[in-house]
């Protein structure tokens, strides 16, 4: 038992800690190359599990196919993960995506799904299909963030929505990780939080580039106006 709880003490002690607040973070605490070097200390079984988890949560895995196919494939991969705690952690994340996809589909004007036909994870597809026309699918009392997410989808504020969702994932990982210090779930939570920071930092970079372009355009216009006067 002690061996399992402290299996990856060296690996985790060799990684810099994450900042407590996601939104004030501007870069990942360690590069992906360095992280992968440290992750080489994982044993084969855990390395496979981590790869499955990252594949499941990475958008490139979604690929082409119907929603039903994607959900079926994801369920199959989820079942291959050896640790129940990690299965639940990933299932929570996939349920979150199910809810956001429902909000987006409804906002896009898609018709209500027939009974029990909404493709997704966990218990929510049943409520989504049954309460399609209710603002928060009748589950806002269980998920306090849902009304805010619905508002942001309705206002097409993708950046704010992403900020809300990433912060939600960040907080959830922090909460779940509070009982795991040096075991395999702690490694997975570290990597998941690293991915969240990476996404957030990239959003910031994209924003910075966009702002830079706007400034350059504005300056060019001023320059052209000035040049025109000459």
């Amino acid at each position, binding site marked *: 038992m*002690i061996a399992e709880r*402290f299996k990856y*003490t*060296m*690996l*985790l*002690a*060799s*990684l*810099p*800690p994450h900042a407590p607040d996601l939104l004030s973070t501007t870069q990942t605490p360690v590069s992906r190359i360095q992280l992968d070097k*440290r992750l080489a200390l994982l044993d084969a079984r855990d390395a496979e599990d981590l790869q499955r988890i990252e594949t499941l949560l990475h958008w490139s895995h979604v690929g082409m196919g119907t929603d039903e196919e994607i959900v079926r494939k994801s369920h199959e991969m989820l079942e291959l993960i050896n640790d129940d705690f990690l299965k639940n952690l990933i299932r929570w994340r996939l349920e979150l995506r199910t809810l956001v996809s429902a909000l987006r589909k409804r906002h896009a004007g898609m018709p209500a799904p027939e009974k029990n036909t909404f493709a997704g994870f966990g218990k929510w597809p049943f409520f989504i299909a049954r309460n399609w026309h209710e603002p928060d699918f009748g589950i806002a009392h269980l998920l306090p963030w849902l009304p805010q997410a619905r508002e942001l989808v309705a206002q097409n504020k993708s950046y704010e929505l992403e900020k809300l969702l990433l912060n939600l994932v960040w907080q959830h990982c922090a909460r779940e990780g509070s009982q795991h*210090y*040096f075991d395999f779930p702690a490694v997975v939570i570290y990597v998941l939080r690293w991915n969240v920071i990476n996404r957030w930092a990239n959003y910031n970079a994209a924003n910075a580039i966009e702002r830079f372009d706007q400034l350059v355009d504005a300056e060019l216009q001023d320059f052209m106006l000035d040049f025109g006067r000459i």
Partner: protein
Amino acid sequence: MTEFIVIFLGWMGLFAPMALGAIGSMIGCTVAGQAAIGAMLDSEGGYGRYVGVSAMPSSQVVYGIVIMFTLNRTITAEIAPSIFAIGILSGLALMLSAIYQGQCCASAIHAVKAKPEVFGLSIAPASIVEGFAVFAFIFALVLAGGIPQT
């Protein structure tokens, strides 16, 4: 036969503080040592601190040796039960304290790596665990003094 078992248990009790203390120290130092090695990979200095903290759980084996020598006497059926009880229970206390102290030390090293200024405070939990090991050690010695020499 019964006397043989009683004397056998007496010998077990005699060696238990040393053996169990050693097992605890091995596990504790391993856990804390791994954290120290990991921290060295991610920091530019303070290596001596990490190694020093990781050695904290080694004191339990020393307490175990002292208890063993204090209990050491010719084992007879009359004194074997008391040696067994003091030896096994003090050994278990030392073993568990070393294991949990190792975990405290690993966490302390992990914290100090990120915030060197909390070094003193971060080893306080490990020191408190050490205090409990010292209680077990001292009172084992006090009780051992009451066992008659044969």
